[in-house]
């Protein structure tokens, strides 16, 4: 099961990103572990300065802005 983290300090875009990933996973019938990371020190430890950012299995795959649905589907199915 993929471990997915959404990094962001609780802004609107971060929430959109979170629900969008949830949505795509549901549509594809995939089980994932989705988690919000809002602690600044934890966010920074990934070396990310633009939020929202997406981390999959401890690898940063996206930073700055809401990712497109097609992109998310790609991450989840690879």
């Amino acid at each position: 099961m993929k471990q997915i983290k959404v990094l962001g300090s609780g802004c609107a875009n971060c929430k959109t990103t979170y629900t969008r990933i949830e949505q795509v996973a549901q549509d594809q019938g995939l089980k994932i572990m989705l988690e919000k990371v809002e602690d600044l020190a934890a966010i920074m430890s990934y070396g990310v300065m633009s939020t929202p950012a997406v981390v999959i299995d401890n690898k940063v795959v996206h930073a700055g802005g809401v990712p497109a649905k097609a992109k998310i589907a790609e991450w989840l199915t690879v």
Partner: protein
Amino acid sequence: MFEQLANLLIYHWGGLSPTSQLGAALHFFVMDTTKILVMLVLIIYLMGLFRTLLSPEKVREYIRGRSTALARIFAVTLGAVTPFCSCSSIPLFIGFVEAGIPLGVTFSFLIASPMINEVAVVLLIGLLGWQLTFFYVAAGLTVAYVGGALLERFHPEQWVEPYVWKIQMGVVTSPARDTSWRGRHEFALGEVEEIVGRIWPWVLIGIGVGAAVHGYVPQTWAETLAGKDNFLTVPLAVLIGIPLYSNAVGVIPLAEAMLNKGAAVGTTLALMMSIAAISLPELIMLRKVIRWPGLLLFVAVLTMAIILVGWTFNLLT
């Protein structure tokens, strides 16, 4: 084209007279809404296609380790061309601090970024012409440079929350970007959706206020109240702009209406900059890393810098 559309809609079909206040206001609203919407979508899409994303992570690498003056020039220019959501202000601030970049330079970046961006610049050219665009950009860069340099003098480090210094940043990893045409097209569409979705309320409010000014404020008022001979209107405009907040794009229609009515250039620029650069949401966010005295000083320095810029332009024009 947009003017014809507004003529048709308001005067021809709506039966309103161009000389009536309501007619003039509605005409302005229809014309600016359609024009700005079309321009926004086009500009953002085209820039999305060709932009190799200049991320804050890259900016940090450019700035770190340079002499202060050079770092500040970089910070101001890069702040103007780097788009970033204001929700990234905090990670960005911490990232800069962690790289040992002086706080004053970071402030310069944070001032320049919301005031100047490529979308606002193209819209300014389209609605107000080259000359005013040049003034606005020059004034914005100056305020960001001088504001940051002045703040440095007060040793702002003393107001930074202690936990900020302890944060250790991981190795910066920027995910690779899809540079095929398909990838670029998708990225550009995403940008249009994201940016237009985020700023449209500010733009509509801006056009609404602009339309009200255009239709209902008598020419003589604007000339006497906001004319260049009235020394007090610049500080007044800046003070009014502090609690008001809008995106840089949203203030353009208001500026257009004010200038049409004969308001002075310096006064108009000062109001625009104060609305775009000083915003309560951003201050509340920055409060997570800087204590109130530091933030108040930030606002005070910016206010003074903008007032000086307004006066200078009123004297020169």
